[in-house]
């Protein structure tokens, strides 16, 4: 019995020594990736880099929806913690401030074409670089729009959008399709409204007030615009406004690819599924800005920003940090790296970026070239994101069902923000 114990103990000791041994020496890269759909591409790229340079690159992908918990537990492994991870927004910066290495002046940052998508800490240092960007708006089925007797050029602001949508909704039975897809408030869909749509009032308020960092309070000065567009979504759609929590993201997507609705609020990331999996014709698709009744919105472009920002672990060894930064530089400059990034993430804000075939991005670029203003992702400042959004979702649901008035939404938006900020600071 004692002998067996001794053997087991010795084995355990040897194992722990081995793991220490591999932690020292040459730098290595450990990437905790948060996009399951890009896992294979990252694994392949990591192998290529390892074959090329001999540097060990390990990629672990957190299961869908579990990135935050995986990151928390992985970061606890002192010598084997990720050297590279993602931070998505101001709250992420607050949570991981101690772990995010300032990246100003690194070769990686010198390769960037814009710093618009980067995240900064309280001291004003860049701690996470936006490695790709996304855009969202109202995805439109041009073929259906034409069937209803309109064209994209007819829609230039909220008023014209409402006119077209109201008319389509009124003739829905005759046309065989409605204006908007279901505005589902199930968890798989509600982020489109509690996250992305709330960006409209936040963006315009911050623009007016010159806000450039996370504010402790918001006023909700553009909440009437938010109400305009939300009312339109729930009125001009076939979905039952009393039961919005029963509609999922997949339901809305299906309304759209089945040709049951003309407008679908979503982003560039939908392109691959709509044209690939569901076989829609790219020529029938385009993306309109979200018009909500704000003065001058004729000049608005799509909402562009990102929650995909790389951060390097400040607590990793210097050798590991260097290996990680070298790897990232290779990813955004090499043929293999830029090819993969273009395929997986569309256009990336780096000098060596390759073009993307995504028509939604082409719409975004076209609007920018026409001199329109980008609606940036103001919602990245949201404090206590999950709880603030949950408050909005519940308020929207009660309002839509007639169980509460619009004041509940205003409370969730304004007071909810103040509470969320106080809780996290």
């Amino acid at each position, binding site marked *: 019995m004692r002998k067996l114990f001794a053997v087991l103990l010795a084995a355990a000791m040897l194992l722990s020594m081995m793991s220490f041994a591999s932690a020292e020496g040459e730098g290595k890269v450990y990437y905790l990736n948060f996009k399951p759909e890009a896992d294979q591409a990252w694994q392949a790229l990591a192998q290529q880099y390892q074959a090329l340079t001999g540097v060990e690159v390990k990629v672990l992908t957190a299961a869908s929806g579990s990135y*935050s918990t995986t990151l*928390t537990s992985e*970061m*606890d492994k*002192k010598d084997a913690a990720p050297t590279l991870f993602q931070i998505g927004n101001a*709250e*992420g910066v*607050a*949570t*991981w401030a*101690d*772990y995010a290495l300032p990246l100003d002046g690194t070769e990686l940052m010198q390769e960037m074409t814009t710093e618009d998508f980067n995240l900064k800490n309280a001291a004003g240092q860049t701690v996470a670089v936006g490695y790709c960007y996304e855009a969202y708006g109202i995805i439109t089925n041009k073929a259906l729009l034409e069937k209803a007797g309109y064209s994209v050029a007819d829609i230039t602001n909220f008023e014209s959008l409402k006119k077209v949508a109201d008319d389509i909704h009124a003739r829905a039975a005759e046309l065989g399709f409605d204006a908007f897809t279901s505005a589902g408030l199930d*968890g798989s869909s509600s982020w489109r409204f509690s996250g992305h749509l709330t960006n409209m009032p936040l963006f315009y308020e911050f623009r007016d007030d010159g806000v450039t960092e996370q504010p402790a309070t918001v006023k909700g000065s553009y909440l009437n615009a938010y109400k305009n567009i939300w009312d339109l979504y729930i009125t001009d759609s076939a979905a039952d406004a*009393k*039961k*919005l*929590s*029963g509609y999922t993201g997949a339901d809305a997507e299906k309304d759209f690819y089945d040709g049951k609705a003309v407008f679908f609020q979503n982003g560039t990331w939908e392109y691959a599924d709509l044209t690939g999996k569901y076989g829609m014709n790219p020529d029938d698709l385009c993306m309109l800005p979200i018009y909500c009744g704000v003065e001058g919105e004729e000049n608005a472009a799509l909402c562009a920003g990102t929650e995909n920002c790389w951060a390097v672990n400040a*607590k990793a060894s210097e050798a590991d940090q260097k290996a990680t930064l070298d790897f990232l530089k290779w990813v955004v400059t090499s043929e293999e790296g830029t090819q993969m990034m273009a395929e997986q993430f569309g256009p990336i804000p780096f000098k060596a970026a390759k073009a993307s075939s995504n028509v939604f991005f082409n719409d975004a670029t076209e609007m920018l070239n026409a001199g329109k203003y980008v609606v940036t992702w103001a919602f990245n400042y949201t*404090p*206590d994101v*999950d*709880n603030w959004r*949950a*408050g909005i*979702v*519940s*308020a929207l*649901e*009660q309002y839509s*069902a007639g*169980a*509460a008035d619009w004041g*509940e939404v205003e*409370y*969730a938006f304004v*007071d*909810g923000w103040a*509470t*969320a900020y106080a*809780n*996290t*600071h």
Partner: protein
Amino acid sequence: MTKKKRSAGAVTSPLIRRPIQRRFAIFLLPTFVCFCIGFLWPFLQGLYLSLNKFTTTSNAEWVGFGNYVKAWNDPGFRAAFGYTARVAVVSLVLINVLAFFVAYALTREIRGSSLFRGVFFVPNLIGGIVLGYIWKTIIDSVLPVSMSIQAEYGFWGLIVVMCWQQVGYMMIIYIAGLQAVPEDMLEAARIDGANGWKTLWYITLPNVMPSITICTFLSLTNGFKLYDQNLVLTNGAPVRRGIGATEMLALNIAKTFSTANQRGVAQAKAVLFFILVTTIALIQLWATRRKEVQQ
């Protein structure tokens, strides 16, 4: 109780006791080690972390009792406490009354009673999340508005799901208790002319008190600790003036934990939660144990 005495007698025999005393470590150590790793150590670390501000457990900053103050001052936490108590008490009563009467009915000689026992027990084998989704779909399709809009619907929806899931389990325990009621006592009652209700009240119930102790303990702690079904059915909604009207304690703690810089506060809430559930469970055990009879 005779069974217990017999086994106690066997263990006190030196022939069996001595080897056990000599080798007890072999039997106890594995469990003890598992207990330490899986329970004691995390529990102590949790206590320590509740006095810290932390993002990862290896990098904690001491803040003393500040987290407890914050936890107690959170109106959402206090509201969740009240709501949880309401759910726990209502479900405790309903589950046990229903389970007892189902058990009582199924120990009468009814045709197909073993089939019914099986059917009643099956809901227990389905996981809380899956079950919650199924019930959410069913309930929401019947109601005029969803449970996440009307807090009262959410409350009763939760109670229905809890009953449906737990009645079968408690029923099994009650059946075991009912079958152990001594036949001679029942016969004596019959001879003395006691009617059905009197027999139930004065003979059966006192004799199944051990089952009642176990079942009330289980359903009370289940009620307080409930998380899955609460998460799936309403996720705390409707939120009114910033407070989730159907948010229970466990859900409130989990939500706090996912908030930046609030992990210590969530941990403090978890410690308060532990103290609360333990206290209530101990009081309940003491209260029901007193009613148990020795045969």
